[in-house]
């Protein structure tokens, strides 16, 4: 017998314990990626070839660094949200579902941080 009232237990919890955050974040990142993705493809077109010196000089520019950080982080977020929905829809069995969702989250975090560090190393002039 709990001392909490039935109303107290459910206040703030929708049927899924959250509201429209997932859906809305997917849309906001989608619009951001529309801009960032097209910028990236356009920037690659502008490059004078793909030699290491050319590409690292391009990535080392301040504006490129900001845009690439935005692109990679937004992409990782949007990708995580999308893969999560796919796993929830197609992976059944409580254990494997939770395991695959956790692995997906960890991998997305790993990839996002690896991207940030790679971009920062070039931006801050670590190599090249």
């Amino acid at each position, binding site marked *: 017998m709990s001392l909490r009232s039935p109303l107290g237990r459910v206040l703030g919890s929708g049927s899924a314990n959250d509201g429209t955050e997932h859906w809305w974040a997917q849309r906001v990142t989608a619009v951001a990626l529309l801009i960032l993705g*097209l910028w990236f493809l356009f920037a690659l*077109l502008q490059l004078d070839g793909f030699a*290491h010196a050319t590409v690292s000089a391009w*990535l080392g520019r301040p504006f490129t660094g900001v845009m690439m950080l935005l692109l990679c982080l937004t992409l990782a977020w949007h990708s995580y949200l*999308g893969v999560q929905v796919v796993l929830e829809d197609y992976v059944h069995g409580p254990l494997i579902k939770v395991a695959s969702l956790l692995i997906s989250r960890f991998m997305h975090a790993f*990839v996002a941080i690896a991207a940030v560090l790679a971009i920062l190393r070039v931006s801050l002039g670590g190599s090249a």
Partner: protein
Amino acid sequence: MGNEGRPLSPHLSVYRWPITMTLSILHRMTGVALSAGLIALVVWLEAIALGAASYDSLGVWMHSGVGQLLLLGWCFSFFFHLSSGVRHLFWDAGHGFEISQANTSSWIVIIAAFVLTAGYWLAMGGLA
């Protein structure tokens, strides 16, 4: 959930396959492909940060037949997911729900994806 043996209502398999279903599954498949593309993008950024030797050995991979095929696949996936994503945003805003409109927009997405991919690939000179 313990309801085996109950009659099922007619499911997807009883309908003639409409173009909108192809678009729906392709949106997911290209999304998952782009999640793999995110890993490739980060590998590329890491290679730039690591220096010319790593970058050039990745370049050999990207110029191989398999590498070119993967890049072309990601290029198509990007433009398809982008076009189809814009269609989803129109739906979110409450437009284009009539069956005839959904069929028309399906074909617009398919044509746009192929045209944009071909245009970009030609502009790039196939990653020359």
